[in-house]
């Protein structure tokens, strides 16, 4: 793999071909905030928090660093007035759903996001898709997936699969930034297969 030299925040950074800007930044110890990113999962590009400013041959554009490939002589700025504004507004949009998520609250403090800026819609899920993708890519169980579309999009545990697979796993609970995955699972369990917990306890 060939080595690429590029610039992030004024610092010369070495990366190898095939890496993303986010990976290169992390190797160089430069922090870029993310919400939907997870090292074990394919990049998703959904939350858009990791947006950075890149300059290619003098042309400035805004890209998500979790997907943008490194290239020789690429110039990256991980912070700028515009980048910060994008992150701030995105955080304000997410906080309308999950105003108490510790991860979001911490980021909000850093970017000056006002959690009361927009109308509240406390669904608690921010649709980062970590549970969905972890279940599909790492566990290969597909017990939880997105349903519906647009503003109606939601995650849903599939009772037929969840009843068999989830009790012994529950690994997605820990990676959920809002603890909604856990709530959604137990709601599904209570409605669709309420005997599951009892029999598990008896078995124990």
């Amino acid at each position, binding site marked *: 793999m060939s080595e690429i030299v590029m610039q992030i925040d004024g610092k010369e950074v070495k990366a190898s071909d095939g890496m993303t800007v986010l990976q290169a930044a992390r190797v160089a110890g430069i922090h870029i905030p993310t919400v939907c990113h997870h090292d074990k999962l394919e990049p998703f590009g959904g939350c858009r928090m990791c947006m950075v400013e890149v300059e290619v041959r003098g042309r400035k554009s805004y890209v998500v660093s979790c997907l943008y490939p490194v290239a020789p002589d690429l110039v990256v700025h991980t912070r700028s007035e515009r980048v910060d504004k994008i992150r701030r507004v995105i955080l304000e949009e997410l906080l309308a759903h999950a105003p108490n998520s510790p991860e979001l609250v911490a980021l909000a403090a850093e970017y000056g996001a006002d959690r009361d800026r927009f109308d509240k819609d406390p669904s608690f899920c921010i649709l980062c898709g970590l549970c969905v993708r972890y279940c599909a890519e790492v566990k290969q169980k597909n017990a939880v*997936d997105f349903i519906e579309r647009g503003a109606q999009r939601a995650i849903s545990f599939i009772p037929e699969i969840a009843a068999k697979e989830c009790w012994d796993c529950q690994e997605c609970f820990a990676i959920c930034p809002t603890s909604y995955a856990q709530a959604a699972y137990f709601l599904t369990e209570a409605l669709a297969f309420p005997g599951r917990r009892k029999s598990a306890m008896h078995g124990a």
Partner: protein
Amino acid sequence: MDSGKIDEIIDRHRGKSGDLIHVLMEIQHKNHWLPRDVLHQVAAALEIPFSRVLRVATLYKTFSLTPRGRHEVHVCTGISCHLRGAKQLLESVERATGIRPGETDTAARFSLETGSCLGSCSLGPEIIVDGKHHARMTPEKVEDVLKEYQ
């Protein structure tokens, strides 16, 4: 529900995961809705996780996961119809049928849908019942038009 026909559709696409949308469309056209056990059959036959079948089935407007009424009422809410009073027309249809878009009445007489412009903007505002266009409608004419469909 004609399970023979559904089995025949599913059989034709067995093992072809890329055909998911085609299969669901054919079943929807034949059967007018997608029962959950049929979705399980599709998942098994096409070798796709059931969750992905459900995801695709809930994503597209055309797919219905509940039984439909005998008559499909479509109120065009395209922009041209909107400018020509589609909102008032829709309210009138809602009053006449007692249902809202996406719903089916308890007697399974009507299912109501709104949306996608069908490209016949010169006829707007219009309602389309079972494929028949009722052009240049007014809220007052709704009762009369729907009477034809029992």
